[in-house]
């Protein structure tokens, strides 16, 4: 007998609850993402150069993934339906974004972030940058080759991502940041992450920025027109603000305190909790964090893993 719509909804809910429980359980087991750096280590880095790495050549898009599988309790057919819906949504998003990409054709986010970093890190003892290069990440070995080939210079590596949100109302800029001491230095305190060379600092950042003056419901085409108008003025303004904020967050985080090694970032007494979804490149993280900094209508939220994300207040 075929299940009734009410049964389908109930089954979907059960599946979603089970999935949420499993995720909650699993995230509780994971250690912090952030590797903090001590002030002692910072002062031993010697000369530091910055490298801004870009994987993408233009602003990215994203979609809201289809949920037919979750709503119907899974199954091969539902999975195929999901894939086909996601494919259609991706095609529409990629077609819609063209005017924004055209307007940003000469915009160089890597260079903007490099200049912002250079200024923001000037006041961070031991971590001010001698200069900052902007390079394309070609393959998984590229970043390790840059760091290993930097001779006697320590490297602050910032891998940048930027994209329009699925509803085209916001631009999200994100960065994965690591600090690698020059050959042999600080060997006793270095750690490893993924395929990166030994590092003394690691964290992930994101800045979520809404189209200025956005009021009422807007179609996607209407939003694209607003982003792209006047040579992409709004898109460039928002990107500049997001990149500046990323640089400021990185500078702040290099001196920010941390819980004892291996412990997650629990909400301190008196701190304001914040729930949301943070996006780092292609990864979306649902979280419950706490507000660590408020200024100029923005909040900086510390996630349980130590990542730092910024949102409008």
């Amino acid at each position, binding site marked *: 007998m075929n299940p009734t719509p009410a049964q389908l909804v109930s089954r979907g809910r059960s599946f979603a609850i089970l999935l949420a429980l499993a995720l909650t359980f699993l995230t509780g087991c994971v250690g912090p993402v952030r590797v903090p750096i001590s002030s002692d280590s910072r002062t031993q880095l010697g000369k530091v150069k910055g490298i801004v790495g*870009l*994987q*993408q*050549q*233009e602003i*990215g*898009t*994203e*979609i809201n*993934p289809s949920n037919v599988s979750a709503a119907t*309790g*899974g*199954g*091969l057919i539902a*999975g195929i339906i999901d*894939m*086909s819906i*996601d*494919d259609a*949504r*991706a*095609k529409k*998003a*990629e*077609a819609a974004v*063209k005017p924004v*990409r*055209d307007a940003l*054709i000469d915009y160089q986010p*890597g260079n903007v972030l490099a200049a912002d970093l250079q200024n923001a890190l000037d006041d961070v003892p031991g971590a001010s940058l001698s200069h900052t290069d*902007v*390079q*394309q*990440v*070609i*393959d*998984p*070995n590229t970043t390790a080759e840059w760091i290993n080939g930097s001779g006697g210079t320590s490297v602050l590596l910032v891998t940048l991502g930027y994209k329009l949100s699925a509803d085209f109302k916001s631009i999200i800029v994100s960065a994965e940041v690591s600090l690698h001491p020059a050959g042999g230095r600080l060997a006793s305190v270095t750690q490893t992450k993924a*395929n990166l060379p030994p590092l003394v600092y690691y964290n992930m950042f994101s800045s979520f920025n809404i189209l200025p003056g956005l009021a009422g419901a807007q179609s996607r085409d209407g939003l694209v027109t607003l982003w792209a108008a006047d040579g992409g003025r709004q898109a460039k303004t928002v990107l500049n603000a997001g990149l500046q904020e990323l640089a400021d967050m990185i500078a702040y985080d290099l001196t920010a305190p941390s819980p004892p090694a291996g412990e997650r970032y629990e909400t301190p007494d008196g701190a304001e909790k914040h729930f949301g979804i943070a996006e780092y490149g292609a990864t979306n993280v649902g979280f419950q964090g706490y507000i660590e900094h408020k200024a100029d209508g923005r909040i900086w939220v510390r996630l349980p893993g130590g990542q730092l994300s910024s949102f409008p207040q």
Partner: protein
Amino acid sequence: MNPAWAQRCSSWILAASCLMAIFSGCNNTPQTSQLDLTVPASADDPSTAPSESSLRVAWLAIEDQRLDTTSLGHIGNDAYVAKSILPWVNQQLRATRGANFAETEDPAKADLVIKPTLLKLYIQNINVAKSAVVVLRLEFLRHGKPSGQFICRGQYAGMNWWNSDEEMAGAIQKAFADCLLNLTASLELNIKLQHMESSASN
């Protein structure tokens, strides 16, 4: 356990097992693939054969303004690269045919000289789909003087079925074909406008 539920669970487990079996063949280790984008030159299409009064178009050497001249982007953890893209792009541009224009080798004898710049050429994934993009800037020169420019964008998006090299190269080629279609349409329009202007002035 209720037999109906037991049956549903077993079906679900079976489906999940099938999916796992299918996807266990997928290699999650990051890989770098060298793509071959070269394709045979397209045969002349008689429907777009240039007329005798066609505009003579000359192409200057293409400039590559990408941050890296080998990178073709990333799909998930996998990276794609290609060396010597420019000869392929050049070949494709010079093979462009229109009813009102034809290529000439000598810029001095050309009615229109085009300086192409490769701005973007990449593939990326959006969820289960792949997207390929090619962007060229074309600067027009008439009688040795700049007479405007045109950003030519080509794009292709489709389901990422197998993540194979052929699939990715095919996506880029389709994006480039889209770019060339836009280029041809723009050139034809440009030439018609020029003919109208010269008729009016006569």
